[in-house]
């Protein structure tokens, strides 16, 4: 789900038909997310951490149905990065999509390349 970012500047996200070019890396700020509109009408939430690693999960908060995860706060627990939903604060592991507060819930994870 992650790629090193050495000298890279374009972010691509995997989707059903291949790699979608999303944006320049410089548009991302560490610790915050952005929303990505996918070709099938779905939405991804793209995050960059302090170290410059970029990850993507679905933008849909499964607890409320709202497409808001990109607006959550990034954090880390035990070295694992997560995003906390801005609505009801459930946390989702950015690497696996699994909800840290309810293991039965998970969101899709998208592969990301920075090239």
């Amino acid at each position: 789900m992650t790629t090193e970012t050495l000298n890279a500047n374009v972010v691509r996200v995997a989707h059903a038909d291949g790699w979608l070019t999303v944006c320049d890396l410089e548009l991302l700020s560490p610790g915050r997310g952005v929303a990505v509109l996918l070709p099938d009408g779905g939405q991804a939430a793209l995050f960059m951490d302090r170290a410059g690693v970029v990850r993507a999960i679905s933008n849909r908060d499964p607890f409320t149905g709202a497409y808001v995860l990109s607006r959550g706060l990034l954090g880390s627990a035990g070295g694992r990065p997560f995003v906390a939903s801005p609505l009801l604060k459930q946390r989702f592991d950015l690497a696996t999509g699994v909800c840290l507060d309810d293991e039965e819930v998970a969101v899709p994870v998208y592969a990301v390349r920075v090239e």
Partner: protein
Amino acid sequence: MPDTTIPNTIPTFVLVGHGMVGQRFLESLAARGLTPAAGRARIVVLCEEPRPAYDRVRLTSYFAGRTPEELSLVEPEFMAQHGIELYVGDPAESVDRTARTVTARSGAVFPYDTLVLATGSYPFVPPVPGKDSRGCFVYRTIEDLLAIEEYAKGAETGAVVGGGLLGLEAAGALKGLGLRTHVVEFAPRLMPVQVDEGGGAALLRTIEGMGLAVHTGVGTQEVTAGADGAVNGMALSDGSSLATDLVVFSAGVRPRDQLARDCGLAVGERGGIVVDEECRTSDPAVFAIGECALASDGRVYGLVAPGYEMAETVAEVLGGGRAGFTGADMSTKLKLLGVDVASFGDAHGSADGALDVVYSDSRSGVYKKLVIGADGTLLGGVLVGDADDYGTLRPMTGSVLPVSPEQLVLPTGAGGPVTLGPSALPDDAVICSCHNVTKGAICEHTTLPEVKKCTRAGTGCGSCVKVIGQLLPPSQDTGLCGCFVHSRSELYEIVRTLGITSFTALLDSHGREEARGGEGCEVCKPTVGSVIASLAPTVGASGYVLDGEQASLQDTNDHFLANLQRNGSYSVVPRIPGGEITPEKLIVIGEVARDFGLYTKITGGQRIDLFGARVEQLPLIWTRLVDAGFESGHAYGKSLRTVKSCVGQTWCRYGVQDSVRMAIDLELRYRGLRSPHKLKSAVSGCARECAEARGKDFGIIATAGGWNLYVGGNGGATPRHADLLAQDLSDAELVRLIDRFLMFYIRTADRLERTSAWLERIDGGLEHVRDVVVHDSLGLCDELERLMADHVAGYRDEWAETIDDPERLRRFVSFVNAPDAPDPSVKFVPERDQIKPDLELLAGPVLAVRTLEGTPS
């Protein structure tokens, strides 16, 4: 037909009616050995329906797959075993009390020594034109239900007249038959008999959520029929009409007392066979039990439990014992359409001096009311949506509760005196009402994460998290979160004394070992962001909350300078200092709302909230607002919200000071001040307190000699009246004390700790705060005043700064790869001439899962 071989020495009991109460009467006789099999009596039962007694209360469960046979209350061998003569489909037609005989429809004549009438009740059909059209039904018997089922095959829509207990049962049945279902209730709420207005509202919301259309406060004027004589609609009393293929009347029941009237027994003015405490009618040889009887307390009981009690009474009396039915508790607990509804005792608070304690959460459809007597006794209550406490509350009726009643209705429980905290709650008290988790279940765990994971408590609305914390054993670790061992106030001191201006610097230098170099978390980031913002002018950080790293620390509301709503849209609140606004500015707000299609609502803080803005619209909206002279209202921030005011001396004949001017001055002074939690204030122009200042973090009430300052008030889930800090202050003294008070609070409070909780928590409480901010016991006041002066001097409007800066505007896009594409998930539907979020759109995959589960594989 009568069996003449029975010796005259044993009595003949004739029971007219074989419903639930009739069957219970037979069982009561059998239990006492008063049966033909025991040689003690002859028993004849005349039953109108074509089948023996069945469970009418669970009639609707037929649609859940229960057969009429499964609904039967009569064991197959019961009649034969006890020698009871049961005649089904042969109702009693007349009674000759002189000859002591009953004549059945078949013509059979039965002599009796004792006659027991258990004829039940019949559905009341309002006398509206068209009520007898094809497609009109009542809902009382299995036969009614079979007829409705048959007719519904050719129908798409059904309407139930009556939103009471049976009406909702019937509506559930129609819905179960796949009809679009309407409920028409004449009273202003559902279940008007059992629940009060608030309970009806909670019920309404839940039932509408199930897809039933509810029309309250309207009567049925007429049932309309097509040329073929079949129902095609209803005309309602409000002038509207309803297209429907089928109508079920369920507008209450009336006692079936015709047989008794015809034979001259006394009946009540409004129906019901008059009986005494032994359930004996005006003829000592005739008894009446169940819904046909007008009990000695003057009531007709439409519930099965009192009917059973009457049946037992008569059986006992016939066996030579002593018994009496003097009235019953009307308490009920039932599940209607899946919703728990319970009422007990004096549910409507009709006793003298009775007071209500009410908790209402329309979000989850929970409504709880306890009626408390003047002496603190629990008199009754209503529970809707969550009736689990019924089992413990009902037995407590008539006694003084061991804990304060608020705590029994409040899921947050934090109300009331400290000595009656959550530890005083019984183990079965529900702490988390979202997931229905009890105190007992929570206390099996030791940490909050464990509680959340194992019980899900605290993962819904989160309002119970504080109480859960109080129930758990005190943690050795008082750190803010998994990243810091320090509390918020300790971090404040570290930031202030070391002049730290960045979160990562603080995390990497003062964070827990394992958290250093990490991202922080959703708890510490906004907290530290707020601390740095509060101290920004002093430590030399940027005061703008969206600058640099500060931007990544803010919750989404601060990040977008707007309030996130449930569908991902935002609301916008311009500042209206003191609640004073010119017509021109009002017009601008109206125009902006109209042009952007926003939903508008007046807030409790005397301003106007504009809902439904998409992220990319926020700068456009604010450009218009800033141009008109508005600035951010900080409704999104943990900061000063509003300073409410009454009109004060200027207009009001009672006012003694200019409360509006003071409110405006204070609001402009403290606007933008970042604090551990939101801050609210109000200024009242006289002791009448129209601005409700004592419900605020800092409230000011005018006196003839100046101003009284109150602190630590709160509304919300844990209301608290503010305490008087100082009296008769001049304008300058007032402002100086508030400066000190706020800065002392900001410096020492925990994360998300309102002034009310802070004041109760800190050592020494109000007296200590007064010592520090009035008498300067710690020698801090100069510094506190300087900090506030820095804030006031450094204030800039966040929105004006944002719209002037292309770099800052960059974040206000829907998608990073399609900045101008409106988010397709943020859509609205009309309601009451405005918009509301289209939540069905968001339900998507959740609904899909339900469909899969419901499809046979």
